[in-house]
């Protein structure tokens, strides 16, 4: 059975976020997560200012996801922040299921590649 590396895992998370982008932009209020993401050094003050410049919440969250995508720990810490907030925990199920889906696709592809 093929094993996934940290790099592949980071790539899978990125892909899952891209697929969920419309959903996440709709559900997540970017500014609620600034404090947590800054405390964990995922966002800088400049990043949060840049995000806050956007006109709508959808655009703010979209920009925040762009920044998170640059960090391999980005999605993990966003999930922690959602847990921390204690509301909207249903989003975690949605994200982890999507990660699982992408992950299974990758594993299938790796397996197919290995048997060639």
């Amino acid at each position, binding site marked *: 059975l093929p094993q996934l590396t940290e790099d592949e895992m980071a790539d899978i998370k990125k892909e899952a976020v891209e697929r969920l982008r419309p959903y996440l932009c709709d559900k997540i209020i970017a500014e609620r997560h600034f404090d947590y993401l800054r405390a964990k050094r995922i966002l800088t003050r400049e990043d949060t200012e840049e995000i806050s410049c956007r006109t709508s919440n959808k655009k703010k969250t979209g920009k925040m996801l762009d920044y998170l995508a640059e960090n391999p720990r980005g999605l993990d810490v966003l999930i922690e922040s959602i847990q921390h907030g204690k509301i909207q925990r249903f989003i975690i199920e949605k994200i982890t*299921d999507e990660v699982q889906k992408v992950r299974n696709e990758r594993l299938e592809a790796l397996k197919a590649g290995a048997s060639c």
Partner: protein
Amino acid sequence: HSLLNINDLREPILKKLCEVLDKTNNKGWRKLAEVVSDDRRFKVSGDEMEKCSLKVLDPEGSPSRSLLWLMGERGCSVRNLTDFLHKIGNVEAVQCLKTQ
């Protein structure tokens, strides 16, 4: 042996079983947890479900493995698990247990 605790299953069997249950379909680990929770002995809480689901973020993590471990801790036997797997209609998973 059908009274064997599921945590005492051989590693290759657990591995294969988790691979089958980690698939994202309506017969996967979430559905299993739902059916399992109808049985008071093994009830899985929302927090526990969330903990299981977060395992998918680790390269070697498996939500199914965490769920099975929880069930085993609560005394779930191979026979119990086989019944649950029949209930969710996961024939492939039932087959994994038959090869023990």
